[in-house]
């Protein structure tokens, strides 16, 4: 009775929660629609899901336009600031593109459609929540909400052993990572006596870093290193990516990875700034090893999806680089945040685009081999040119979007200055040359080699795929030529680090 008497209705700002509410309603709606639609009209669940994602963008926009600087809810555990709004928008749009990628794939592939979109939306809901979670508990819940549906989606091609393997590996390693992370979190809670990120920061600032804290932070970082598939915690990624349905692979490599980075950013910027000596060297090593190993292994791949998997590991290494210098100075801190957010946005556009092409091409070739791209330029010049744009954007060649992402990472490192930062930047520079080789290799196949089986019937691109390609290609090109558009979001994205508004 005492507890109940203490309980007071928290003052909830429904406007701030509107994106989540819209999305949650869409989740329910998809489930209901699936219940009442007959088999021929199941595709409508996809439409509902897509509309739900776009609908959730509306409150994100109104929140962004409102004058109120940041809305702090639940005693500081849930914060809607510019940072979270930018990333919510990113996740919603990325989710929408994934739905565009999925529609024909799921419709033609004899899948359970309703459940597919239900799980996809749930996972996006987790991502939207993770951008605002400033409390260990809400962070963990959001993370699980986005991960658990993803485990199931990875195994969605249930008659294919490879897909089963993909889901199983992803599940086992993901759960293991969650366990490690949770252990670290509980240690942190034990010493700091709070789960609020801001509370942890004030504890660390006053008490310093004793061994328990070091262990806790290392465990948490390692847990997220699994999520963002940083080497040496990346082993699940290539198999999962190859086995999962291709739209889900795109989803995992872009959105799920970005969610991991968002959580890391919040921890590093809000909870752990005082313990920078613990995590900065850790990120330095993780970044250097991740991009180097990812790139070197990608060189040897013959399957396009596996190549993109390793490339996404390597790109993850690039995104980790600025985290190694966050604590060096105020300027470096801001530049690092801009760099990571910018990179996530650009990376989402170009990588989703590349997967859209893979989907379109494999509709004809029924193959995932890089060799099957041979002669694409001869019979599908449009797709070949778009793929070229995405690949060289991933490689960071101006004037395509990827250059500004790489550039802002280098900028953050040199802004911090010092031998270690510049050293990491040089490693990054060399890595971008290595990466070019395997991206160019695919371009070489498309432009310079003959069609392997001589079949040059043109590829019919379904409307939804074409829409996805239009969105991603336009974003990749426009960002590259007018980078201000996306850098402004990066700049806007200052994380609110205080508990009170």
């Amino acid at each position, binding site marked *: 009775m005492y507890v109940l008497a203490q309980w007071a209705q928290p003052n909830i700002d429904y406007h701030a929660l509107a994106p989540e509410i819209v999305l949650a309603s869409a989740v329910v709606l998809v489930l209901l629609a699936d219940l009442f639609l007959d088999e021929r009209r199941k595709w409508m669940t996809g439409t509902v899901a897509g509309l739900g994602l776009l609908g959730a963008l509306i409150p994100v926009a109104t929140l962004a336009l409102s004058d109120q600087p940041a809305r702090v809810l639940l005693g500081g555990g849930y914060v809607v600031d510019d940072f979270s709004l930018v990333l919510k928008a990113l996740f919603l749009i990325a989710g929408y593109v994934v739905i565009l990628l999925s529609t024909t794939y799921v419709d033609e592939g004899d899948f359970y459609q309703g459940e597919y979109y239900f799980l996809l939306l749930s996972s996006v809901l987790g991502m939207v929540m993770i951008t605002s979670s400033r409390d260990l508990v809400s962070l963990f819940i959001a993370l699980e909400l986005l991960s658990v549906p993803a485990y199931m989606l990875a195994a969605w091609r249930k008659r294919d052993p490879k897909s089963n393997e993909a889901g199983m590996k992803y599940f086992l390693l993901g759960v293991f990572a969650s366990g490690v992370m949770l252990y670290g979190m509980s240690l942190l809670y034990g010493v700091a006596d709070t789960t609020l990120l801001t509370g942890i920061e004030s504890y660390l600032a006053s008490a310093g870093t004793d061994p328990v804290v070091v262990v806790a932070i290392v465990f948490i970082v390692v847990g997220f290193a699994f999520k963002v598939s940083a080497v040496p915690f990346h082993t699940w990624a290539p198999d999962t990516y190859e086995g999962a349905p291709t739209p889900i692979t795109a989803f995992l490599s872009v959105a799920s990875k970005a969610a991991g980075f968002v959580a890391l950013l919040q921890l590093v910027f809000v909870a752990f700034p005082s313990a920078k000596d613990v995590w900065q060297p850790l990120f330095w090593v993780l970044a250097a090893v991740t991009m180097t190993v990812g790139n070197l292994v990608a060189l040897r791949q013959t399957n396009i999806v596996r190549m993109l998997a390793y490339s996404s590991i390597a790109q993850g290494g690039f995104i980790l680089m600025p985290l190694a210098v966050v604590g060096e100075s105020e300027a470096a801190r801001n530049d690092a945040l801009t760099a990571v957010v910018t990179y996530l946005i650009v990376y989402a556009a170009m990588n989703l685009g590349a997967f859209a092409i893979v989907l379109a091409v494999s509709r004809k070739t029924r193959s995932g081999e890089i060799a099957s791209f041979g002669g694409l330029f001869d019979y599908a010049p449009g797709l070949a040119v778009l793929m070229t744009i995405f690949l060289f954007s991933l490689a960071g*060649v101006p004037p395509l979007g990827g250059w500004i992402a790489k550039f802002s990472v280098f*900028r953050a490192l040199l802004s911090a200055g010092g031998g270690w930062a510049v050293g990491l930047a040089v490693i990054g520079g060399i890595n*971008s040359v290595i990466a*070019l080789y395997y991206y*160019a290799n695919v371009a070489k196949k498309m432009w*310079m080699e003959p069609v392997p089986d001589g079949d040059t019937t043109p590829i019919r691109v379904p409307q939804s795929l074409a829409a996805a390609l239009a969105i991603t290609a336009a974003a990749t090109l426009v960002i590259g030529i007018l980078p201000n558009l996306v*850098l402004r979001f990066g700049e806007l994205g200052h994380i609110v680090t205080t508990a009170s508004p």
Partner: protein
Amino acid sequence: MEHLTDYNWVLSAGVFLPLVGVVVMLFIPRSEELWHKIVALAASAASLGVGIFTLIAFDYDKADKLQFYADNRWIDVIHSRYIVGLDGMSLPLYILSMAIVVLTIVYSWNHIPHPGNAKAFLMLMLILEVGMNGTFVAQDLILFFVFFEIVLLPMYFMIGVWGGEERQYASIKFFLFTLFGSSLMLLGFLALFFNTGAQSFSIEYLAAHTNGIVHNTQLWIFAGLFIGFAVKVPMFPFHTWLPDAHTQAPTQGSVILAAILLKLGTYGFVRIAIPVLPDAAHSWAPWIGFLAVIGIIYGALCCLAQTDMKRLIAFSSVAHMGFVMLGISTLTSFGFNAAIFGMVAHGLITGMLFFLAGSVKERYHTLEIKRLSGMLTQMPRLGWILGFCAMASLGLPGLAGFWGEFPAILSSYSPAAGLPEETFRTFMVVAAVGTVLAAGYLLWLYQRTAFGEPTAEFAAGHGHDQDIHDIELPEYIAWTPILIAIIALGVFPNLLFKVMDPAVQVAVSAFGG
């Protein structure tokens, strides 16, 4: 710093007009080859037209100032602005770039290389032009970087799709080398930015604010820029991509590579690396000179060993760019003038030689020197032009090549104050030996291919001579302007020196002129 802002739209128009052509060509089906040629020619000619307007409107009394200066917002967040401007150093290269592209497109009229597809080929050429034109007018390091890199993709595909036997190897090698250089260059740009207070990427601003940087840091930053530009030039030992790229590229690609792309590197030195970091440049200058003369001798020796005409011309580029870099390394206005003249002259002459090599290949289906002979009897006009260009290339007085080479050698007699005179005089002697070698390999090439009687397999009536004919109309139209320019600049070198000198004085002002 005073700027002239009259007509400040012309540079953007000159840079981006080719892009209009690209957009139009996107909507023309692939089979309409003639229309593609017409649109591409029109777009590049429009760009050249704007260029000629630039030539007329340029205030030659103020060639040391940036003219047609435009400064607009671009990427506020990183303090990078869209700044374009043109002074006497950029003007010749800017016009050269526009003119060469127009002539190359004319030449393409009946020379679309295998496997065809004029649409893609010409579109890539126009995109290439945007990058090249832009690099010569960009006055902001990030803008410069973007233009500098835009050329990579089109050239990669030009070599890789329309090139020779080893095209795939050559194209990726070109790409990887250049990207390696430019990523270090970009780090150098960023280091410059942060070491000058993170205010601006404007070249002028940086040049005025680098005094405060610790000398050691300056040396490192210069090293980064040096590698970026030296790969592009290319200087020994970063040159190995060049012979492959040149040999495998289609004729048009080789011409543009030789005439313009290599100049992006040397232009980077005279526009950015040296004026912005004069102290570091002063410390590095003897080493640059050293690598330059190695390039001269090494390039010449390699030429003597070549059996393929195109590869020989490619290696002669290494040697000629060595002269340009030697002139630059003296850090004197005399040396800089020689260097920029050398860039223009090399662009015209070597570009022309590659045109000729392409036409010879088309007629004989081989470029192996020992199989070619007696061109003068079989196609006298082409043979004479080859002779003319060989003479121009070896630096015959009265033709353009002379004014790039001779003053460069002369300038190393008295390098800028503080540079070791003995060393540079040694360089001078070695470079002079290089000119003798140049005469050797060029005359030898000419003697073997043009003189005498045709070899048995290409003699009349043996069945292999059906493609051998003298110059065709598109070739005439494409080549005549270049030949006239070679003579005109050879006889009136002041046409160029007068334009460049005021701007060069500014660039070397840190070294006492």
